[in-house]
């Protein structure tokens, strides 16, 4: 069974049993419902392409993860922005100044925030190891809870549980610009040596990054929002763009198991590029309607 590779056996069997039960339930239900209302299909046939795509994508990721688990070497090229994270924390340690980490300003319902929290876990391990002060202001209480959990675990794993203070992660303000005003003021007063912004950012991206620059910090940003990237690129020392944000936590962890995800993504990316080229060629010869329609799912 390729799935659930990193989970231990007991967990695996629990998950398996539950998902099989769920599937059985749905199948049984589908059949019974189908018997009652023949005119309406329970499975949404119009979404068949998506199902195939999800399956292809999942198998690619899981296959590479499984290879990694079996000890196959997976090559991932150097990503300069991510390497800079460790340097930045090192610099803060030398200067004896704090590291500021902002996991975006979205709530947990935004996957970018979760990517930011994963990176926070790696960064917290480094600060724990070197006893560098860490400050993580957040805008949503749910991120407060998740952030505290992440940072505490990092400190415990490095064996520095005593050094953990739960006010490292703090809820500062509810509204976007109130949050920014507070963090900007803090930056000017405390002068952090390294500012790391990882997650979903909106108009405040440049407000934060310019103030951080004025405060003299080395700055690394990462977001998947194309509309904010130009501002981070202009004002920060390193910027992780789009996909690099999601790759960062796996890359920093250096766990082969997590790198499997990146390899799987790359595999699907090649398929996407090939499909685009085929589609473009077919359409330009006016014989591509059938092919293009496969991708029409809205």
């Amino acid at each position: 069974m390729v799935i659930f590779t990193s989970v231990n056996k007991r967990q695996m069997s629990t998950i398996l049993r539950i998902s099989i039960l769920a599937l059985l339930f749905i199948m049984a239900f589908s059949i019974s419902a189908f018997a009652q209302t023949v005119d309406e299909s329970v499975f949404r046939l119009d979404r068949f392409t998506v199902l195939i795509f999800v399956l292809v994508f999942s198998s690619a990721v899981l296959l590479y993860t499984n290879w990694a688990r079996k000890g196959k070497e997976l090559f991932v090229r150097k990503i300069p922005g991510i390497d800079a994270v460790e340097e930045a924390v090192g610099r803060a340690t030398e200067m004896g100044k704090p590291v500021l980490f902002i996991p975006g300003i979205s709530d947990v319902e935004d996957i970018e925030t979760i990517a930011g929290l994963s990176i926070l876990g790696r960064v917290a391990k480094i600060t724990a190891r070197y006893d560098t002060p860490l400050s993580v202001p957040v805008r949503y209480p749910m991120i407060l809870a998740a952030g505290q959990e992440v940072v505490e675990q990092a400190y415990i794993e490095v064996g520095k549980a005593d050094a953990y203070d739960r006010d490292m992660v703090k809820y500062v303000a509810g509204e976007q610009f109130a949050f920014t005003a507070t963090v900007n003021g803090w930056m000017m007063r405390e002068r952090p040596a390294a500012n790391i912004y990882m997650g979903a950012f909106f108009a405040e991206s440049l407000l934060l990054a310019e103030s951080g620059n004025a405060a003299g910090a080395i700055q690394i940003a990462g977001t998947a929002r194309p509309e904010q990237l130009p501002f981070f690129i202009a004002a920060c020392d390193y910027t992780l763009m789009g996909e690099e944000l999601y790759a960062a936590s796996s890359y920093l962890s250096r766990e082969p198991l997590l790198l499997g995800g990146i390899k799987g993504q790359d595999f699907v990316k090649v398929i996407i590029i090939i499909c685009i080229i085929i589609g473009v060629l077919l359409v330009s010869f006016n014989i591509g309607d059938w092919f293009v329609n496969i991708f029409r799912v809205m």
Partner: protein
Amino acid sequence: MKKTVPVVVAFLAGFVMVISFFFNTEQIMNWLSVTFGMDSLHGKTMEGFVLQWVTIVSGFTLVLGVFSIVRVNARAVAKKSEGWFYKLLTVVSVFAMAIPAMLPVSKDTVGGKIVFGIFPDSWRALFGTGPTSIYDWLFTYLDQPMMETMFAMLAFFIASAAYRAFRARNAEATLLLLTAVIVMLWRVPMGEAFLRLFSDSLPNYIDLFIMNGFNVAVQRGIIIGAALGAASMSLRIMLGIERTYMGKG
């Protein structure tokens, strides 16, 4: 137990959303509403049902937020550390805004009976979050101007960032600064007139090739790449491979 339960819960919470995408879940909900007498589920989708749960769970965490902001600031106030007075103001502001908003506006509820037993009935308009409430006034005349001002400050920062970053250090930086300057010119009447000196259709070409060509293409490339990253991250979370947030680093 400590590790298995969260992994299983995360998987199920995600799996429900996947299932409800591929199936017409309204029928499942209708079946539930008939079988278990859960009348108000009739006609709802499963996504909507689960998302309501998520909203409710998130709503409770607000207590943690208030607890955190009060504790961090109260600590500083108790120690009389530098700037404690400002921190006290923060705590006062939280309650000044929150308490009137939470008071009931109607006398018919249990809470209403107690509150209007103490306060005169005419104060009703000040409570809650309506147009005449304290909450609304504080928002309109204190929060609002500050939000607008922080937003407007971007004009200064966009200028200083442009000044510092837009230097022709190499090919990439040169492309960045050239397009930025051209687009900036194109967006104002004076600049547009200037561009028309070169060619009357230059402004249209900028719109067509830069905004609809380069801009659209790159946005698309980044969106596709980032979506792949997001999907792969989601899969890792659902399968418990990525568990930073629940105690596995």
